[in-house]
């Protein structure tokens, strides 16, 4: 009975929301080949770490009229940014709308550093969001349970199950109903946003969740939402809720 007691005690210290072995949810990592998995797990072979290195340098570089860097206010990212990426998108009190991590970085730079706005999907934005994201690696996805986010999350759920494009598909038709099956030669993952920004081998570069979502939309021959649009943030809100408790892998590698 000793082992049972041990197992029970382990269960009780398990973070309330973390994944249990019985959880049917699987990270995209589980669908990858062993080589690609090894690439993600080795920080000296993961090409996304180059993006992280860039972000680390940007973190301490003063820029803009205020003459500040990210570090001037936030200090050591290892401490101050721990777990931050796990709880975005979250509510922006000023506007009453949800804001994603890239949006928050852009906002911070514009209003507090008075620096030129960072382009979404640009090198610097990806670098900073990958660097901030890394500080949450290994932590469970923890979407904020703010009642005011509920309508936006519901909108995300609606978009996830809305038919789109000439092929008239919904996200759910592939990623819920047919996850684990193949689309051509490629496995269909469950679409969990727990490793973004990722280095995608197909892109040969680092990219955000929104770039990946646009890929899927182009695939269904829908007109993709634009970067930073309310639709994408709503979708991300829903996807993060759906992946609640899963482990953050940022920066991930995907085929």
């Amino acid at each position, binding site marked *: 009975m000793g082992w049972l007691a041990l197992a029970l005690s382990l269960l009780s210290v398990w973070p309330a929301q973390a994944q249990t072995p019985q959880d049917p949810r699987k990270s995209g990592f589980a669908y990858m080949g062993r080589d690609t998995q090894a690439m993600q797990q080795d920080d000296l072979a993961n*090409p996304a770490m180059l993006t992280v*290195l*860039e972000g680390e340098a940007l973190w301490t570089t003063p820029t803009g009229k205020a003459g500040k860097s990210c570090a001037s206010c936030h200090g050591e990212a290892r401490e101050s940014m721990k777990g931050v990426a796990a709880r975005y998108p979250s509510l922006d009190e000023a506007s009453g709308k949800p804001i994603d991590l890239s949006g928050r970085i852009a906002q911070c730079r514009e209003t507090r550093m008075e620096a030129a706005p960072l382009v979404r999907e640009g090198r610097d934005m990806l670098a900073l969001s990958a660097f901030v994201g890394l500080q949450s690696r290994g932590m469970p996805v923890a979407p904020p349970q703010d009642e005011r986010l509920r309508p936006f999350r519901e909108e995300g759920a609606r978009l996830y199950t809305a038919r789109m494009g000439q092929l008239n598909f919904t996200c759910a038709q592939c990623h819920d109903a047919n996850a684990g099956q193949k689309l051509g030669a490629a496995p269909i993952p469950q679409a969990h946003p727990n490793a973004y920004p990722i280095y995608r081998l197909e892109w040969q570069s680092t990219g955000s969740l929104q770039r990946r979502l646009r890929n899927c939309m182009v695939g269904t021959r829908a007109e993709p939402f634009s970067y930073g649009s309310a639709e994408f943030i709503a979708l991300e809100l829903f996807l993060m809720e759906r992946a609640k408790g899963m482990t953050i892998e940022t920066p991930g590698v995907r085929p």
Partner: protein
Amino acid sequence: MTRALINIPQKAKRGEVIEIKTMLSHPMETGFRPSSDGRLVPRDIIEKFVCTYNGEVVFSADLYPAVSANPFLSFNMVAEQSGTIVFAWTDNHGKTQVQTAAIQVE
């Protein structure tokens, strides 16, 4: 200045075969790809990689447009004496980027 990830053991025994892994942040633009305006994106690739160990070339490679972005190169060498290992990547414009690493051999 682009970034590079270099993985070498900091310490090694004399005569030991050590593995070196390098990765350079580089787009490796082939010069064959049209951009959204229809014009070709100019070629920008690393053409030569040279690794020297205390001044002596221990590994070199020629790279071509078929090599992926962020070229990853891994090779072995025999650790003979303490010193510096110099990695140099040269692109098709003749620009060379150099990184150094120290190794201690006991």
